[in-house]
C-alpha cells in the first residue's frame, strides 16, 4: 500500500536530504488559522506536518505547547476539527504527509476504530500517540494497519536494547526518537549521548528515524542531518507563531521554515 510518509522518505533518500516536520496544535492561535499555517509551512519547504490534538493534561509537553493546547481547547478544538482541517488541506491539493499527534484519551473517548477510519478518510497518513507504548498498542496497531495509517512509535535515550527491539518490531513509517529525557520544549544543545542512542536504534531497524523534542535551531538540523532522516520542530515553531501577529504571521512562518530547510539541504 502507498503511504505518503514512505514515499517522502524514499525520495529524500535519493536526494540525500532530511525531512523537516513542523508541529502545531489545531485551532490555534484561532480556529481559522490552522489551514493557512500548514500551507505556509509546507510551501516554504517543510516536508510534512504534525498536527496536535490538544489535551487538558499534556504531561509529556512543556509549557509552550501546554499553553497553546489550553487556548486551542477554548477555541473548540476536538477530533472532528482535526478531520475538517485535514479534509480542507487535501481539497486544497496539499499532497505532503499529514500526521496527527495526540494523547490517548481523546482518541479512546472518540472510539479507536472510528478515529482511525475517519483519519484515513480525511487524508491523514500517520498517528503519534505519545502515551500509548507498544505494550498497550496491540489493538491500535492492527487497526492502524487496516486503515493504512502509520503508527509512529517513540523511543527515548532511556530506552534499553530490549525496548528498542520491541519498538523496531512494531513500528511502521518512521521512528520518532526523543532527543533528551524530558518534555517538549526548546533547548540549546544536544549531547553526544544522542549520537550513541541513534546508532543503537539504527542497528535494530531500517526504518527512517526522525528526531524531536528541543529541536529549534539551524545547528540542530545540521547535527541531525548527520545521524538521522528527519527533524521534528515543535515548541520552537509554536513559539514563532506566538510571537507573530496576524499581519506578519505568514512571513514569519516562511522565514522560520526556509531558514531551517536551507541548511538542511546544503
Amino acid at each position: 500500500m502507498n503511504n505518503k510518509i514512505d514515499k517522502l522518505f524514499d525520495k529524500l533518500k535519493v536526494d540525500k536530504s532530511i525531512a523537516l516536520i513542523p508541529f502545531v496544535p489545531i485551532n490555534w492561535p484561532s480556529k481559522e488559522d490552522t489551514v493557512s499555517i500548514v500551507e505556509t509551512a509546507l510551501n516554504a519547504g517543510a516536508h510534512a506536518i504534525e498536527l496536535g490534538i490538544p489535551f487538558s493534561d499534556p504531561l509529556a509537553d512543556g509549557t509552550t505547547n501546554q499553553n497553546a493546547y489550553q487556548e486551542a481547547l477554548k477555541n473548540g478544538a476536538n477530533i472532528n476539527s482535526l478531520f475538517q482541517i485535514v479534509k480542507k488541506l487535501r481539497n486544497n491539493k496539499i499532497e505532503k504527509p499529514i500526521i496527527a499527534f495526540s494523547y490517548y484519551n481523546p482518541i479512546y473517548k472518540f472510539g479507536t476504530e472510528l478515529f482511525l477510519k475517519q483519519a484515513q478518510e480525511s487524508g491523514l497518513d500517520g498517528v503519534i500517540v505519545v502515551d500509548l507504548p507498544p505494550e498497550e498498542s496491540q489493538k491500535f496497531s492492527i487497526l492502524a494497519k487496516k486503515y493504512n495509517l502509520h503508527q509512529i512509535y517513540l523511543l527515548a535515550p532511556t530506552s534499553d536494547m530490549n525496548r528498542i527491539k520491541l519498538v523496531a518490531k512494531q513500528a511502521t513509517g518512521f521512528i520518532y526518537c526523543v532527543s533528551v529525557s524530558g518534555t517538549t520544549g526548546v533547548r540549546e544543545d544536544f549531547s553526544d549521548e544522542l549520537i550513541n542512542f541513534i546508532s543503537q536504534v539504527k542497528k535494530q531497524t531500517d526504518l527512517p528515524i526522525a528526531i524531536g523534542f528541543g529541536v529549534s535551531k539551524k545547528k540542530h538540523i545540521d547535527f541531525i542531518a548527520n545521524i538521522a532522516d528527519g527533524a521534528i520542530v515543535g515548541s520552537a515553531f509554536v513559539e514563532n507563531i506566538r510571537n507573530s501577529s496576524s499581519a506578519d504571521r505568514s512571513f514569519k512562518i516562511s522565514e522560520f521554515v526556509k531558514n531551517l530547510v536551507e541548511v538542511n539541504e546544503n
Partner: protein
Amino acid sequence: MTKKFPDYQGHFGEFGGKFVPETLMPALDELENEFRVASKDTKFINRLNNLLNTYVGRPTPLTFAENLSEKLGYKIYLKREDLCHTGAHKINAALAQALLVKRMGKKRVVAETGAGQHGVATATACALMGLQAVIYMGAKDFERQKINVARMRLLGAEVIKVNSGSMTLKDAINEAIRDWVTNVKNTHYLIGSVVGPHPYPEIIRNYQSIIGKEAKKQIMDVENRLPDVIIACVGGGSNAMGIFYPFLDDKQTQLIGIEAAGEGIDKQHAATLSVGTKGILHGAKSLVLQDNNGQIEEAHSISAGLDYPGVGPEHAWLQSLNQAEYFSVTNEIALEGVELLSKTEGIIPALETAHAVGYLPQLTKTLNSDSILILNVSGRGDKDMDIISEKLNFFHE
C-alpha cells in the same frame, strides 16, 4: 481469585496498564524489578517492619466506638490510621517506597500532594532516609492546607506551587510526572495513591494492605468473626484499597467506598466511580471525569485529598465486578461526619475520612445490633481546622 490481580502487564481486567511516554517505560520496569526482588529480601522486609513498628507506631489500634455504636444501632470499630506518625496512612507506603529508592541508588524523590498528607509523609520518609524531596502541590491546595506546607518545609522538602489547570491534585501530578520525565535517571516518583501506571497501583496497595491485615486479625481477636461491612473514603483510593484488599475473598464482608459528592452530584463533585466514564489519565485506564471530547474535567471537594477526577484502576475493576460498592456524600454531610465523630468519640477525623463517617447514618436501615462494621479512619483532622472552623462558624461573633 481477584487477589491475584493485576496481571503481568498491570491490568485489572480492562483497567490499569501503562499509558506513559516511552521515556518512563524503563523506569517502570526498573521499579517493578526492584519491588519484586525486595519483596523476597528478608533484610528489606525486616527493616520495613521495624520502621513500621518503632517509627510509624504500628500496629494501629482497632477502637470500639461505643457511643457511636449505641447511637446508630450497630457495632462500629475504627481502624486508627490517624494515630500513625504524621497523622495519616500515607506514611505506610511512603516509607516503603523510600526504602526502594535507596535500593535503586537514586538520591532524589518527587511527589504530588493534595491535602498535604502524602507530601508530609514523603518529606518525613526522605528526611529519615537522607533523600532530597521535591513536592508538587496545586496552588489551591497550597492555600487551604498551609499547615502541611509548613510541615513539609520544616522537614527539609522543597514545595513547589502548581498554577496550571485546576491548581489541585491532578495538576500537581502532571507537574510531578514532567519533573520525573526530565530527571528520571536519578529521580523516583513517589506516588501517594493506588493510581498511575503499573506497577504503582500494585505497589501502593501492597504496602497499604497492612491496614487490612491488622484489622482482620484485630477483629477476629475481639469478635471472633469477620466484619459485615468495611467502609473507607476514596479519592485515589489508597486507604480503601489498603483495608479492602485482605478481605477481597471474604464474601460475607461487604466493602463500601465513599467518594466526595462536593456540592452535589449534579453540580461540582469528585465522584468518579459514581458518575465517571472509562478513560486514560496519569498512566492508567480507569474511570475519569471527562467531557465528550475526552478532556479531563475539574473535580471539586471540600477535602483536598479527595479532589481528583480519576480513581485507582483496581477500584474501577472491583466496582465492575460488584466486589465493592461505591457511594458519594456531599461537603455538607462530610462536615456533619466531622462533628459526629468528634462529639461522640473524641476523635477529630480528616475531612477525607469524614466522608465515610458521614455515610454511617444511612446504614442504620440495613444493619442491626449484631452487625459489625469497620471504618478506616485514614487520617486526623488537625490539618483541616481552618476550613472546619470557617464552615462551622467557630469564630463568628
